[in-house]
C-alpha cells in the first residue's frame, strides 16, 4: 500500500524579461519611482567600485579581489531591505551589501588591500566580518539569530552563499537547525552558475538549489537574481516573515558571475565564451535601467550625472584609504586575546625589535 506522506514545491518569481520589459501586468507596488531609482543608483555605484577594485589589483595596488559583477541587484536589494538592527552575515562577494550597511568604501579597499582593520569600523555595528571559508557563515547566521531570539529582539538575520557553497555540510546543517528552531534567518543563495571552474550542474543534480529547503522543512523559493523587482518582493517578504517570528527562508537568486572567480582566476580556461556573452544580455544593471527608462524614471542626463558622481565618490574613497597609515607590528599581537598573555607579549617585544632592524636595514615598512 502506497500513500503520499509529503508534497512540496518551489516557486520562481520574475517580473522583467532580459531586456527589462514586463513579462505581464505589473503589480501596483512595482509602479512609481521608489525604491527603484535608489536601487539603480546603488547598483551603478557597486559596479564602479568593482571596476576600480579590479584596476587597483591589476596595477599592483591591491591583492586578490573577488568581483561582484553580475551580483549587483541581489546585493543592493537585500541590503536595502534590511533594517539597521537586522544583522548581515556576509560572504566574500557582498561588497555592495556592506557599503549599503554603512561600511565606508575606504574600509572595503582597506580590507581587500590585505588589512584586518577593514573589518573593524564601528559603522558595521554587529554585522559579521568577511571571512573566506565557504558556507560557515550560514551557521554563524543561525547563531546570531538564536541570540536575537533569546533576547526577544524581533529582527532578522540575512546571510548569503554561492551555488557551490550549498554542497557543503555547513549550509545544510544551518538550514536544518533554522527550521528546527524556527530562526529568523533569510538564506540567499547567489546562484551565479559557477563555483570557480565547477558549473552548477556538477554541484547537485536537483533542478533547483532552493529545494534543499524542503529537506529542512522550511520555505524555499527561486527568484530571478537579475530582476530587482522580483528580488524586492521575495526578499522583502522573507525578511518580514523572519521578523514576525514566522521562520526562515531559503531564496535561490539566479544570476551569473560575469567576472573571473577572482582576479587570481582566468575563466577562459574553463568557461565557454558564448555562455558569458549570453549572460551579458540578461545582466541586472542594464535591465533595471531599461525598465526605468521605460517608466520615465531615468534618462541619459541623470545617467551621466550619476556616473560622474559615483566615480568621484570612489576616487575619494581610494584617497581616504591611501591616507590610512600602516598597521604597527603590535597590531599583529593585540586583539588576539582580550589581554595579551605574557608569552605573546614577549614575542611582540621581539617582533618590534625585528621590525626596527628591518626598517634600519633600509627596507620598506613591508617586505
Amino acid at each position: 500500500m502506497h500513500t503520499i506522506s509529503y508534497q512540496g514545491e518551489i516557486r520562481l518569481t520574475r517580473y522583467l524579461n532580459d531586456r527589462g520589459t514586463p513579462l505581464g501586468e505589473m503589480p501596483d507596488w512595482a509602479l512609481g519611482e521608489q525604491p527603484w531609482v535608489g536601487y539603480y543608483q546603488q547598483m551603478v555605484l557597486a559596479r564602479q567600485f568593482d571596476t576600480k577594485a579590479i584596476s587597483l589589483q591589476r596595477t599592483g595596488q591591491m591583492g586578490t579581489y573577488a568581483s561582484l559583477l553580475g551580483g549587483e541587484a541581489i546585493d543592493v536589494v537585500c541590503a536595502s531591505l534590511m533594517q539597521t538592527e537586522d544583522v548581515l552575515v556576509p560572504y566574500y562577494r557582498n561588497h555592495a551589501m556592506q557599503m549599503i550597511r554603512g561600511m565606508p568604501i575606504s574600509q572595503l579597499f582597506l580590507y581587500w588591500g590585505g588589512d584586518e582593520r577593514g573589518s573593524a569600523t564601528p559603522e558595521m555595528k554587529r554585522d559579521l566580518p568577511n571571512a573566506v571559508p565557504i558556507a560557515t557563515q550560514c551557521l554563524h547566521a543561525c547563531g546570531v539569530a538564536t541570540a536575537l531570539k533569546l533576547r526577544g529582539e524581533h529582527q532578522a538575520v540575512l546571510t548569503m552563499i554561492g551555488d557551490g557553497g550549498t554542497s557543503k555540510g555547513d549550509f545544510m546543517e544551518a538550514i536544518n537547525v533554522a527550521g528546527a528552531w524556527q530562526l529568523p534567518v533569510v538564506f540567499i543563495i547567489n546562484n551565479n552558475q559557477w563555483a570557480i571552474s565547477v558549473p552548477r550542474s556538477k554541484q547537485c543534480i536537483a533542478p533547483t538549489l532552493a529545494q534543499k529547503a524542503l529537506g529542512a522543512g522550511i520555505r524555499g523559493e527561486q527568484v530571478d537574481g537579475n530582476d530587482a523587482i522580483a528580488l524586492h518582493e521575495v526578499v522583502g517578504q522573507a525578511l518580514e516573515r523572519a521578523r514576525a517570528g514566522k521562520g526562515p527562508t531559503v531564496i535561490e537568486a539566479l544570476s551569473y558571475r560575469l567576472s573571473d572567480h577572482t582576479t587570481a582566476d582566468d575563466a577562459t580556461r574553463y568557461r565557454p565564451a558564448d555562455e558569458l556573452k549570453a549572460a551579458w544580455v540578461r545582466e541586472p544593471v542594464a535591465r533595471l535601467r531599461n525598465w526605468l527608462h521605460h517608466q520615465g524614471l531615468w534618462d541619459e542626463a541623470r545617467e551621466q550625472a550619476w556616473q560622474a558622481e559615483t566615480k568621484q565618490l570612489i576616487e575619494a574613497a581610494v584617497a581616504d584609504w591611501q591616507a590610512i597609515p600602516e598597521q604597527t607590528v603590535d597590531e599583529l599581537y593585540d586583539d588576539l586575546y582580550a589581554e595579551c598573555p605574557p608569552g605573546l607579549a614577549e614575542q611582540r617585544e621581539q617582533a618590534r625589535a625585528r621590525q626596527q632592524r628591518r626598517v634600519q636595514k633600509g627596507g620598506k615598512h613591508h617586505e
Partner: protein
Amino acid sequence: MSDNAITLLDAVNLAMARALDEDPNVVLLGEDIGANGGVFRATDGLQARFGERRVIDTPLAETMIAGLSVGMATQGIRPVAEIQFMGFIFPAFEHLVAHAARMRHRTRGRLSCPMVLRAPFGGGIHAPEHHSESTETLLAHIPGLRVVIPSSPARAYGLLLAAIRCDDPVVFLEPKRIYRASKTLVEDNGEALPLDTCFTLREGNDITLISWGAMVQETLMAADRLADEGVSCEVIDVATLNPIDHATLIASVHKTGRCVIIHEAPHHGGMGAEISATLSEQMLTSLQAPVRRVTGDDTVMPYYRNEQLYLPDVDDILIAVRETMEYSG
C-alpha cells in the same frame, strides 16, 4: 567529608549553574544536555532549573554546535557548548580555528567570541572506540584558542567559571576518568581561578613532575611512593595548555634540576614536547638530567579491552623518575 564534598563532575555542574544564575547571557547547548542531563550528567538538573531557552538540546551536528556558538558569541551571548566526547570534536575544528580563535583578531576587537566548548576526554572508563582520546595538542597549537584542563573538583569549579567569564574562546577539557574519582570540599563562592597559571600541587626539591588531566592522579600517587623512597617531588598541574605558564615550570625545574612530564596523549608532537623543549632551551646547563616524557604511545588508543595497555601508570612514572634521579652525565 562534609556535605559540600563533591566530585569533579559535580563541580562542573555547579560552576555552570552558578554562571547561568549570575549572567542571563550564559546559555548551554549540546547533544542530550537537557532532560538527559548529558551522557555524563554534567548538566543534570540544569534544564529543569533554568528552562529550555537557557539549556538547549541541539540537533546532532558538531559543526553546527560550534558554528552556532560562534554566531551567538559575537552578539554578546556566552554559549557553553558540550561536545559529547572529545573524539567527536573534529567537525567543530573549522569553526574553532577559522572563526572562534580569530573573531577578535579579524575585526580588530570590534567583535569577540566569548564561547566555551566543553568536552570530556581521556581513556580508562571502558568506553567504546573514539570515546577515549586525548587530542588536546591539536587545540593548544591554535593561536587565539585557550585550552584549559582541570584535575580536581576545586579547579574544575574555579577554572570553568573563569572560562565562562573569559572574553576569549576557551576549550575546556574534562578528564572523565576522574569525573567521580574523589570528593573534595568546594565552596560555591563564585570565585574563578586564573587562566594563565600552573598549579603547584606539592612542593619538593629533587625533581619536578609536570602533568595535567587525569594523569595528575597517577603523578601524585607516584610522588607519594617516591617520598617513601626519599625523593622529594614537586608536582605541578599545568592546567592551561594555551597559553602555558612557562615561568612557573621553569622556576620549579630551576630549583629541582630534574623533570619528568606525564601525559596521556601520544608522545610525538604532544604538549610534553613543548614543555620539554622550552625547559631544555631555557636552562640547558642547570638541568642535572635530561627531561623525560612519560606519555601514551604513537598508536591509536585501543578498544577498551586493551586500554590499560595504552595508558601510562604509576610504575611508568616511578621508573622514569628513578632513572632521572640516577642519571649522571
